[in-house]
């Protein structure tokens, strides 16, 4: 059990490629932190630096109170689950799980106890004699997790451990890893490119892009209050609708003018934007905040606009509608009773209580 701290951590590769730039994160003990971002954003590099598989170019990494920059991976009290699982192909499942303990000269009965306990926890007791190639993808993934938990480490590192599983298994494994985190009460650090995994598993999420930390917060806060355009677009599925717009208006009124449509910012939030009138901004609205005007929930400040329906995707409990309003495309997640059909022009209501405005230049949120 331990906290983890990244202090001004930078990773540079030969040829002046900077993979991670000035990363500062403190991860509390027992936290489940997820690094998320598109490929090449530095999330895996950050994890590998923490694991000791990559050298740290600048800055310090702490595990607990100890700087681990120059500590060998085996002495960092960590265990890691790899994307490819990296099970030793020539060893049985039992030996795979016992390998790390054997190297640490743990007495045999103790090894046996811990391996069997971990296998029981993961439901792989009956596979202990098999070789990795005799296992299915899901079973291999469990063995890889098992190999990590027998070691009883202070910090678990997981590098996209679910990306080789099929969709159904992934959902199941997601829940199992979350459960494991609750049972073990250990710090988990998890890397994924999948924002759904990040949202469902993390107690906090660190969103990265091009080696920079874009925002770190709880899933709900990231979703509700993204700090910048990147996080706004990355978190949430389908992703947030983003429009280039200008703030206009006179007197006390502030309008968002996208060129295709013009909507009024409600009084309660207008104050913030009054001084920005005339400025270029990015206007963001999540698909679930665009309603079919026939089914607008009561009590919201909504603004109606007209849009043409291009595609509808029936999901059962909701319909995803691809809309086009005078050349501006947007997605709406509407009530399944909607009458929107492809080719129709429909009235949709934009919920103006929960929009986002970002500065066009800095792409930072203005609240």
């Amino acid at each position, binding site marked *: 059990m331990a906290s983890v701290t990244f202090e001004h951590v930078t990773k540079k590769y030969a040829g002046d490629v900077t993979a991670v730039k000035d990363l500062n994160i403190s991860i509390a003990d027992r936290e489940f932190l997820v690094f998320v971002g598109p490929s090449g954003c530095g999330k895996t590099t950050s994890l590998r630096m923490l694991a000791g598989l990559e050298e740290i170019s600048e800055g310090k990494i702490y595990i607990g109170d100890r700087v681990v920059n120059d500590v060998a991976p085996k002495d960092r009290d960590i265990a890691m689950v790899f994307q*490819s699982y990296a099970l030793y192909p020539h060893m049985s499942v039992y030996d795979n799980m016992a390998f790390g303990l054997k190297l640490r000269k743990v007495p045999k009965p103790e090894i046996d106890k811990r391996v069997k306990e971990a296998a029981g926890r993961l439901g792989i007791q009956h596979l202990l004699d098999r070789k990795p190639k005799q296992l299915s993808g899901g079973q291999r993934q469990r063995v890889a997790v098992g190999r990590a938990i027998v070691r009883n480490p202070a910090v678990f590192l997981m590098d996209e451990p679910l990306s080789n599983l099929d969709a159904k298994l992934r959902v199941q494994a997601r829940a199992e890893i979350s459960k494991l985190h609750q049972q073990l009460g250990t710090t988990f650090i998890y890397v994924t490119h999948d924002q759904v995994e990040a949202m469902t598993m993390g107690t906090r999420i660190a969103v990265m892009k091009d080696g920079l930390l874009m925002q770190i917060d709880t899933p709900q806060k990231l979703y509700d209050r993204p700090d910048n355009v990147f996080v706004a677009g990355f978190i949430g599925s389908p992703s947030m609708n983003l429009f280039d717009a200008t703030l206009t208006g006179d007197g006390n009124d502030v309008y968002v003018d996208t060129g295709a449509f013009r909507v009024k910012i409600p009084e309660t939030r207008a104050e913030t934007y009054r001084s920005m009138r005339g400025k270029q901004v990015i206007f963001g609205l999540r698909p679930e905040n665009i309603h079919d005007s026939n089914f607008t929930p009561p009590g919201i400040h909504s603004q109606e606009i007209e849009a043409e329906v291009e595609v509808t995707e029936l999901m059962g409990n909701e319909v995803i509608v691809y809309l086009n309003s005078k050349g501006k495309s947007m997605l709406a997640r509407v009530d399944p009773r909607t009458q929107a059909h492809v080719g129709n022009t429909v009235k949709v209501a934009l919920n103006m209580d929960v929009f986002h405005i970002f500065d066009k230049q800095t792409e930072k949120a203005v609240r």
Partner: protein
Amino acid sequence: MFSKGFSFAKVIIYIVLLFWSVTVVMPMLWALMSSLKSDQEIFFSPWGLPAQLLWDNFSRAWVKAQLGQFMFNTFAVMLPSLFLTLLLSAMVAYVLARYSFRGKSVIFYLFLSGMMFPMFLALVPLYFVTDYLGLRNTYFGLSLVYVAFSLPFTIFFLVGFFKTLPKELSEAATIDGASHFQIFFDVMLPLAKPGLISAGIFNFLGQWNQFILPTVLMTNEGLPEGQSRYLLSQGLYFLQAKQGYESDLSGMFAAVVIVTIPALLIYIIFQDRIEAGLTVGAVKG
């Protein structure tokens, strides 16, 4: 055979293969047949079957022509040399394939250039070096020379093999707490077994057929009468030379068969491996 995809090209291919097989198999069969005949039969009906099977030819070759002794000598040289070749090559190849360090490619190409070095150029210096070190006419001395000549190819071959092994495995072992040596011996070496077997077979066949090196470095000088340090290839040559004054053709054919058997066995047992070894690195396992 031709039921699917019958084509003219295939017929040609099979005809060529058939011709090839016959040219390879015929001499072997002929030698086997001749090894069971009497000398008269070999001369007067070279293509006929033996009238009776004279197994005595083999015992004569084994005992009188000292084939047994030569066989022992050969293995006494080759077992250590094969072991050392594989062990050292695997260690060098692993480092060259897995670690990056300054001068790595220089070392690699230095080994590669060893593959192109003509053995004949090295003979005279080798003679003097081994003589000076007291290694001439010793089993281990010749083993070491074999190792030196086998390293370049084996390293080249195994570097390719080690490169195909996933990097995550050594990383996982690192985190599990394995040292560099433990990663090599506990994880990487067992995984390299197919490559090691292939390399072992190639080296076995190459060293089995070695003639020049033992001829120069293994002489019987100073040995008491009746003892010999000759290897099989030398012994066979010696037998053939003896035909000039002490004709025992049937015994010589028996010797030829005896010499062929170990190599043939290796081919038969490991034919899959030899084939796989030729395409190592082409397909990821």
